[in-house]
């Protein structure tokens, strides 16, 4: 008999038992809580003689305040406790032996509910309990003397059973299945996919044409369209030798700096990267961009993912061979510091627990696709994560210090220092001594003003002046300004040299274990502390103990990055698949728990996870292997019969037609119109705006800027994401979002028709072709189509283009527009049409 299984949480029990049973259970719980009439003397005598001794002897050890345990939330040492019952429902329902779970348990009839756990009571004792309940369960006992409801925590999770879930099984490299048509496959991946085709009764689509394939590869690996000359080159090379043409192109694209800008951006979605605190106060994070650059560089350098993981969780604790490496590892820990924060929280303990919660939530979803933060207030309702596991993790982060900056000011009271990076890191331009003195002067004036106002307010209040209140706003305003100036001064030395600052983590000095907070309430801590540790459901076998004088972040990171961790490699392999195919093998990419979806191809997912580890966690190598498959090469060709069988394309019978994401759409628009600046801008718009509060000391419009750089470099301020991204389903950067949603709404059409960005891009595009290149007529149309769609226009499209220009010119003439102006406008309008068309932003 497993003790823990007995006390399923109520809600889980209700799921198992069905709503009717749960309803009844709760209804009886309600009924039993009602006070009943005074017990009779005979009843009390029966209780004292027969029942109390039995309770003390057989039950109190686990179910009494004095025994120190409240297993399953059940107390049997008071009348109230018996009536109210535990997590499973009321133990005793007077006059209702059938309803009383206590009887069910002692009868040993229900395999899930047998008490006491180690032996069955004598029949005579059981009969006594039956008689007692039938007579109305008379019970003279008063409420527990403490007067306080007991607040002990008991674990309700069965870990062994939980480990049976597919995601916690160690991935095994499965035998490559034999397939009917061996000629179709190009590598092992295809064998698994072909097996799936056979099962689903679908026929794989033919290979994509080389133009579509190159376009797909270019966008998938770099987020940019291929240049027209690349298309020509690829088409002829592909005709000669498809495999080598493909392999060489993949190698070229992976070597491009644009690869990191594309794949780094994917990771930034997972890492909920943003440059402000969000929530109520929304203060800037002027140094967040360092983490962004770190991520781009890590992907470009193909940093092994296990290393990438460890650096983000515990980079500050790793040895470094150089100052530059040390700086890089410190910046990596920005991952944990970038989250949203309620800077206006008044209770510092509450703030701390919320901060830690955000870190646990992000980290567990990002690396483990596990919603560990669900276990903050109670055991996880669906996954095998007891509440104690949550607090084991919490202890690790509570023993660390999170440094994120932000100024103090009105409603903002949680400022921290930042990390000083070694001199190898990039720095802001210096300030002159004069500028520093000026800031110091501002600070002093604001300080004096604030003090002055405070004195006046106090005076007014003393006089009972109703106006005292009107000073409050001014004081707060002044303090906010002061916070911003102080924040700026913090960024420089007294001489005006910039401090090289970053957001991130450090050890707090005195590590400690966390208490469990009942219902997640900081004021409701248990006495009991949970040793710092990891999720118990995942045993890697190579876990290292957490030394008493360390937070445990390093050991946590190593546990996640262990090749024996069944989640980490699978979760990443699934993300890589999503980033190449537009859908994960597990569609719920951030949730591999029991409420997530199951993998469409479990063996393939296992294979990829094992391969990833074999490839030393090289993401580029995994990409090479996947893109070499026939599966990746399939066309998006529609087939009615296959669609009928599998409209979601989970069996991968064709390539999924995909819309470009917001960044690719914007970047491709710039690239095609010749306006894209390839390099990396220094810092960020947010860094230039500096410390402050968005909407208060810094206008929101500051961040709706246009710049010629790739979209990953646009400012990402929570609540003020640039329109070019927000309209096309950029994820809310407040939460981990491994997958974007897709909407098709008229506001997107309005943007493509009318926005200054598109209008300017179209003008640049037209000027390049018409002015710079001197193209005319069919030549111009051909070049434009090539740039936008990687193909020449069809004959019909050529004719339609011509007809469009003529119609446009006629209409413009009717409006009295001069011929030259009309012609350029017509060409511009033509170019914009290509950029706004569906073909431009849908990949086949």
């Amino acid at each position, binding site marked *: 008999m497993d003790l823990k299984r007995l006390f399923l949480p109520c809600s889980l029990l209700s799921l198992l038992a069905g709503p009717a049973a749960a309803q009844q259970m709760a209804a009886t*719980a309600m009924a039993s809580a009602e006070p009943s009439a005074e017990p009779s003397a005979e009843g009390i005598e029966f209780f004292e003689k027969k029942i109390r001794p039995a309770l003390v002897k057989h039950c109190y050890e686990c179910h009494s305040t004095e025994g120190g345990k409240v297993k399953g939330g059940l107390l049997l040492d008071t009348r109230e406790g018996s009536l109210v019952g535990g997590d499973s429902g009321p133990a005793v329902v007077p006059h209702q032996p059938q309803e009383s779970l206590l009887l069910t348990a002692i009868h040993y009839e229900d395999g899930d509910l047998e008490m006491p756990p180690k032996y069955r009571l004598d029949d005579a004792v059981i009969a006594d309990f039956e008689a007692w309940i039938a007579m109305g369960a008379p019970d003279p006992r008063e409420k527990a003397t403490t007067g306080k409801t007991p607040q002990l925590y008991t674990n309700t999770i069965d870990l062994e059973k939980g480990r049976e879930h597919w995601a916690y099984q160690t991935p095994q490299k499965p035998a490559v299945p034999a397939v009917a048509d061996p000629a179709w496959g190009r590598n092992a991946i295809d064998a698994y996919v072909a097996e799936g085709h056979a099962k689903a009764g679908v026929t794989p689509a033919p290979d994509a044409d080389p133009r579509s394939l190159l376009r797909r590869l270019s966008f998938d690996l770099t987020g940019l369209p291929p240049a027209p000359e690349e298309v020509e080159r690829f088409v002829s090379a592909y005709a000669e030798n498809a495999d080598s043409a493909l392999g060489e192109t993949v190698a070229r694209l992976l070597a491009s700096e644009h690869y990191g800008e594309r794949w780094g951006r994917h990771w930034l979605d997972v890492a909920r990267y943003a440059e402000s605190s969000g929530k109520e106060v929304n203060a800037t994070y002027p140094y967040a961009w360092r983490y962004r650059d770190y991520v781009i560089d890590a992907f470009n350098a193909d940093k092994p993912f296990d290393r990438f993981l460890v650096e983000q969780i515990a980079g500050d604790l790793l040895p470094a061979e150089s100052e530059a490496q040390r700086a890089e590892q410190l910046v990596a820990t920005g991952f944990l510091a970038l989250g949203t924060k309620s800077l206006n929280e008044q209770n510092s303990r509450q703030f701390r627990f919320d901060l830690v919660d955000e870190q646990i939530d992000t980290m567990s979803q990002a690396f483990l696709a596990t919603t560990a933060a669900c276990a903050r207030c109670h055991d996880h309702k669906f996954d095998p994560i007891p509440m104690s596991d949550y607090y084991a993790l919490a202890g690790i982060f509570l023993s660390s210090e999170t440094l994120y900056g932000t100024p103090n000011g009105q409603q903002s009271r949680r400022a921290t220092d930042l990390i000083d990076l070694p001199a190898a890191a990039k720095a802001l331009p210096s300030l002159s001594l004069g500028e520093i003195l000026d800031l110091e002067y501002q600070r002093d004036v604001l300080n004096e003003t604030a003090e002055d106002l405070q004195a006046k307010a106090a005076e007014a209040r003393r006089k009972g002046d109703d106006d005292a209140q009107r000073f409050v706003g001014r004081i707060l305003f002044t303090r906010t300004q002061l916070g911003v100036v102080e924040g700026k001064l913090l960024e420089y030395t007294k001489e005006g040299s910039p401090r090289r600052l970053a957001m991130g983590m450090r050890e707090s000095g005195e590590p400690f274990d966390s208490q469990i907070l009942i219902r997640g309430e900081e004021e409701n801590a248990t006495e009991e502390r949970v040793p710092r540790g990891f999720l118990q459901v995942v045993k890697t076998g190579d876990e290292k103990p957490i030394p008493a004088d360390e937070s445990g972040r390093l050991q946590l990171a190593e546990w996640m990055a262990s090749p024996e961790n069944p989640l980490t490699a699978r979760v990443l392999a699934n993300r890589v698949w999503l980033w190449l195919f537009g859908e994960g093998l597990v569609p719920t990419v951030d949730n591999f728990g029991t409420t997530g979806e199951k993998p469409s191809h479990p063996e393939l997912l296992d294979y990829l996870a094992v391969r990833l580890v074999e490839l030393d966690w090289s993401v580029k190598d995994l990409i090479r292997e996947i893109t070499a498959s026939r599966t990746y090469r399939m066309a998006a060709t529609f087939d009615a019969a296959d669609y009928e069988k599998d409209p979601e394309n989970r069996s991968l019978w064709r390539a999924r037609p995909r819309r470009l994401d917001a960044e690719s759409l914007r970047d491709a628009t710039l690239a095609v119109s010749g306006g894209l600046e390839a390099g990396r801008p220094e810092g960020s718009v947010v860094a230039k705006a500096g410390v402050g509060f968005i909407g208060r000391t810094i206008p929101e419009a500051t961040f709706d800027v246009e710049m010629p750089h790739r979209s990953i470099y646009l400012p990402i301020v929570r609540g003020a994401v640039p329109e070019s991204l927000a309209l096309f389903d950029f994820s809310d950067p407040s939460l981990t979002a491994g997958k974007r949603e897709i909407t098709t709404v008229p506001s997107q059409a309005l943007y493509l028709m009318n926005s200054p960005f598109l209008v300017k891009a179209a003008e640049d595009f037209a000027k390049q072709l018409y002015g710079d290149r001197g193209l005319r007529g069919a030549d111009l149309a051909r070049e434009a189509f090539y740039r936008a769609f990687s193909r020449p226009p069809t004959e019909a*499209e050529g004719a339609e283009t011509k007809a469009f220009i003529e119609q446009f010119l006629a209409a413009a003439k009717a409006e009295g527009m001069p011929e030259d102006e009309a012609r350029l406008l017509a060409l511009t309008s033509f170019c914009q049409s290509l950029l706004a068309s569906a073909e431009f932003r849908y990949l086949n």
Partner: protein
Amino acid sequence: MNPTLLTRRQSLQTLSSGFGYLAFSALSTMAAEKAANPLAPRQPHFTPRAKRVIFLSMQGGPSHVDTFDHKPLLTRDAGKPAPRGNAGLLGSPFEFKAHGESGLMMSSLFPHLAAHADDLCLINSMNTDLPNHPQATTQMHTGNFQFVRPSLGAWTLYGLGTENDSLPGFITLAPPNGAQNYGSAFLPAVYQGTPVGREVRNRFARGGDQSPVSNLANPKLSPELQRVQLDFVNGLNRAKLAQDQHHPEVEGVIESFELAFRMQDEVPRVLDLAGEPESVKKLYGIDGEATGAFARQCLSARRLAEAGVRFIQINHGNWDHHRNLKDGLEQNCAEIDQPIAGLIADLKQRDLLKDTLIVWAGEFGRTPHGQSSNGRDHNNKGYSIWMAGGGVKGGMRYGSTDDYGYQAVEDRMHIHDWHATMLHLMGLDHERLTYRYAGRDFRLTDVHGTVAKGLLA
């Protein structure tokens, strides 16, 4: 008549009959009986009581025992150990009083709304499957928390079409994150909700005077020239669609461009609140510090309803009161009370309330026992919403929870029942409103749902 309008209409006709749906009809999974225009108004299954919906969505789980579910025993037993959980019962800090001729019990948080008590149909017996925000929110909007399914507004639009072809038929004002909540899933993209305006997260942020819809005019092209351009874009898109054979998203793109083109005229006219008389603005509380933002949304909703939009959703957040229940509720209710009351009064004086269904709902309620010293945890087993207008009985309380408000006990109303009832009010039989996909007929209510006849007027 303006000749360009004729051209537009003609072009719309060619557009909607000439492509796409032909491809659709070749598929047996697609309903073959496609109307020429998928958004044209359609006959419901039976005579509707409501022609349109204004859905006031309260994100976070508003506490029912502090607003619309009066629980005297909870007040009496405050501080005693709760029958569930191991915290004490938390009495409501707000006083309940009877209002209107009906004597509907409402807490002191809604002084303005209380004046309309006789129009409200309180549903005290709501319940939903899970006490987690994301799942419960998705279930409230789509009926299903596990899979991606069309939203209530999308189903409504699919069932009824819309009255104004120059505005989206389903508009959601300043929605929070989560496009699934206004998505169309496997229904054609044209039934998707259109978000208008951004969620205002930062309470200190200023600058609410901007138009909620941007890019409404082209800086270079006259409408005539833009029409020529749009026809060309449509040609390109149609060619792609023909090439791809079946591509619902591209069909959605084509439709969204046509709609966007017409919105350029219509949106500025409909969403410009400047022309509203001062008395009306005052009624909604447009100049109020607390009420301003929500008042603008409510007044916009009325104007959209008048203009023929079928389904309008207004969103309000921050109802997740694990802590700070008293102040938090006071602030939230101060923001929405007057604007909602203004909306009801305004619709009534225009004789629109009778066929406009107003719904106020959060994704779940909160526990009768406390959390922290001044907060409540999530409770999905019993909570309250209300409806008004459009064929519901006013001044009525439908269903109830147990003595403390833990769970619905009488006339229990699950999300599916509520959805079935709303569709019924709009003249739609939830068992007949189906869409064939992946070899199955899908419904908003899956295989569940019972219309709550007891609350129909």
